[in-house]
């Protein structure tokens, strides 16, 4: 089957060869399907050959119709010695061949709307199959009665058996073929990783199968009611764990087990009952398996979207960082360029002074080293989150950060206060990173106050010493963070602003945590917001250990 399916452009000799193979397979399946057949007709409660026919039509389209329409006739002639142009053979061609080929063509059309198996697609598939099978059963049974193969009184029985058998055959095998062909191959690696679970499930399914059909092995009274519904449990378990692909294999294995070992111990009526239950079991298994496959596809999609989002986050973070990096680097570069330019100007002087030239070049070297340090510091942080701790004066840090934002504040008519406790100890931290955090918090405060149409917004930075750390808090008189967002403001992509990605606080948190500090929301209500972070004190020992 698979080898046939993978070819889509077929040359003529190959087409003939493949057609012959198809007819052979069809006849073989038809032969094995003749279990508890009704009065020496083709009508049996199991129709795997029909599944093959529909699968081939769905795969290759109407161009295979001549072969699929004729095959039931050939089968009739080969298996039941029907006359080549007799009513039985022609009836099989017209009823089976035409109905199910048409069913296959219709399903092929419908499938275009469903590139992946979905529960909706399965419902459509089921509806088409059930109605085609009913149509065929009614037509074919009528033909057989007309032909004298069946007694007139057994029409309804024949319709029932044929209908159940075909639906059963199709529903168990067709989705297997379809799902395997759309490729649940992605599941293979997962299956390999959890092969133990799969073996356990197979064992449980086997056990339940043995218990369910125990009277077939003579282990109990044949009249004993078979608790068929036990089989639902392992099938549902498998469907929910693995999705449609593995469920397909399990259902097919179960059906083959029933046909091979159970059917011969059954009466035609009890076998039919089992086949009806198998249809229900298969339907349940399919719906669950397909919806599980759908879920995992959606999850995978969401994960890939997450990935896109985080790469976007990364880009946004980079753009926020370039501003800071630009500032850190451009000063040393500016000085470096000036010193070098001065050095070359000195060379042009008629009586240049060797000592001052040397001094300019030394200073240039110093500036180059300074810029290298900035870059190294940043690179190390980005590579491993490692921070370059140094002793930082909290007052200086706060003053600098505020100075950087002061222009914005004053031009918006805001007052920004800085309250720094006297005699603060030094902290062990990365100066650049903490300066980014403070500036970010100040920018948020600015946005909050600006967005609230306050005439005299107020922003305060307070730096205080605590037992083992120094706490920086940034407070604004803005409208506060909406209550629903308060517990997630430090997560990425949480934002109260219409512009921006809501990354600021997430970055702040990672920077503060990289410096072994903590950041938290102190309060947020209609009168304003206060966010604080703390950084451990930098004792001499700490510095030595961290350096």
């Amino acid at each position, binding site marked *: 089957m698979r080898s046939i399916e993978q070819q889509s452009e077929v040359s003529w000799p190959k087409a003939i060869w493949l057609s012959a193979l198809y007819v052979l397979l069809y006849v073989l399946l038809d032969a094995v399907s003749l279990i508890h057949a009704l009065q020496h007709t083709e009508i049996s409660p199991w129709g795997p050959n029909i599944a093959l026919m529909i699968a081939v039509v769905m795969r290759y389209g109407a161009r295979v119709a001549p072969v699929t329409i004729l095959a039931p006739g050939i089968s009739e002639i080969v298996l039941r010695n029907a006359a080549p142009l007799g009513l039985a053979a022609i009836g099989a061609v017209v009823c089976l061949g035409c109905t199910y080929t048409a069913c296959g063509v219709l399903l092929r059309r419908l499938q275009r709307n469903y590139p992946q198996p979905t529960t909706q697609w399965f419902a459509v598939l089921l509806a088409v199959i059930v109605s085609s099978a009913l149509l065929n059963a009614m037509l074919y049974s009528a033909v057989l009665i007309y032909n004298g193969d069946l007694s007139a009184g057994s029409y309804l029985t024949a319709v029932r058996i044929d209908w159940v058998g075909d639906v059963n055959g199709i529903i168990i095998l067709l989705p297997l073929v379809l799902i395997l062909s759309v490729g649940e191959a992605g599941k293979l690696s997962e299956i390999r990783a959890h092969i133990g679970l799969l073996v356990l499930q197979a064992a449980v399914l086997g056990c339940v199968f043995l218990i369910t059909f125990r009277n077939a092995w003579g282990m109990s009274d044949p009249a004993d009611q078979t608790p068929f519904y036990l089989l639902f449990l392992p099938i549902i378990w498998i469907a929910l764990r693995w999705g449609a692909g593995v469920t397909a294999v399990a259902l097919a294995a179960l059906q083959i087990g029933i046909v091979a070992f159970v059917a011969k111990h059954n009466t035609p009526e009890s076998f039919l009952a089992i086949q009806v239950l198998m249809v229900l079991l298969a339907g349940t298994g399919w719906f669950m398996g397909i919806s599980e496959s759908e879920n995992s596809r959606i999850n995978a999609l969401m994960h890939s979207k997450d990935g896109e989002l985080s790469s976007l986050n990364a880009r946004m973070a980079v753009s926020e960082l370039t501003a800071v990096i630009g500032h850190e680097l451009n000063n040393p570069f500016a000085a470096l360029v000036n010193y070098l330019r001065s050095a070359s100007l000195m060379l042009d002087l008629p009586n240049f002074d060797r000592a001052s030239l040397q001094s300019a070049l030394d200073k240039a070297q*110093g500036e180059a080293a300074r810029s290298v340090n900035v870059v190294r510091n940043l690179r190390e942080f980005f590579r491993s989150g490692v921070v370059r701790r140094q002793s930082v004066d909290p007052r200086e840090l706060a003053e600098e950060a505020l100075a950087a934002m002061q222009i914005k504040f004053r031009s918006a008519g805001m007052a920004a206060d800085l309250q720094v406790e006297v005699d603060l100890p030094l902290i062990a931290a990365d100066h650049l990173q903490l300066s980014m955090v403070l500036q970010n918090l100040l920018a948020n405060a600015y946005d909050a106050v600006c967005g609230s149409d306050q005439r005299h917004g107020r922003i305060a930075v307070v730096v205080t010493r605590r037992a083992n750390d120094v706490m920086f808090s940034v407070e604004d008189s803005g409208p506060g963070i909406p209550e629903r967002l308060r517990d997630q403001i430090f997560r990425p992509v949480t934002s109260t602003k219409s512009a921006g990605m809501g990354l600021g606080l997430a970055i702040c948190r990672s920077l503060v945590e990289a410096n072994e500090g903590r950041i938290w929301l102190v309060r947020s209500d209609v009168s304003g917001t206060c966010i604080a972070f703390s950084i451990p004190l930098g004792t001499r020992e700490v510095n030595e250990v961290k350096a």
Partner: protein
Amino acid sequence: MNSDATIFIVDDDMAVRDSLGLLLGLKGFRTQIFANAENLLKAYNPKWFGCMLVDVRMPGMSGLELHAELCRRACDLPVVIMTAYGDVATARIALKAGAADFLEKPIDDAVLIDVLQSAIDAHAALRRGSSAGKGTQHLTTREQQVSDLVTAGNTVKQIAAQLGISPRTVEVYKSRMVQKLRVQDGVGGSSSDA
């Protein structure tokens, strides 16, 4: 020519102000260096002549605040603003407030000399009390260059590459240029002297 002109440099970064002093000294300018705005204000003398070269971002009083304070004190010294990371908003605020020019670090020395020289010339003209004082309404050398390149059909990026400045700065020059030209149009022939 400007024997008594001094460049007053204010930058919190020691290396930057030191190197600027050295470079401008070699270029023949007299310089005076301040580590912050407060120090300059303490030393400020209305008789100063020349030009100021001021960094935007400084702890304490920022460059823009210093500029505003000098305006309040009726200081007529042209102020050139420098920044380590130029953003359009800051440049716009600075130029709107009447800064003579806006430069991004690292500054090309030819551009720097050019800007400082025209600022000093403008100051000299202002001090002479002649109508040339209105020269601030005329395009500076830099603006003229940008204007020429725009007229020649260059894109902002191309202009930035040719003049060795960032595209954002070109945008700032462009908008200021347009503003000045509009002012001239609006005033009509009254400023067409000189």
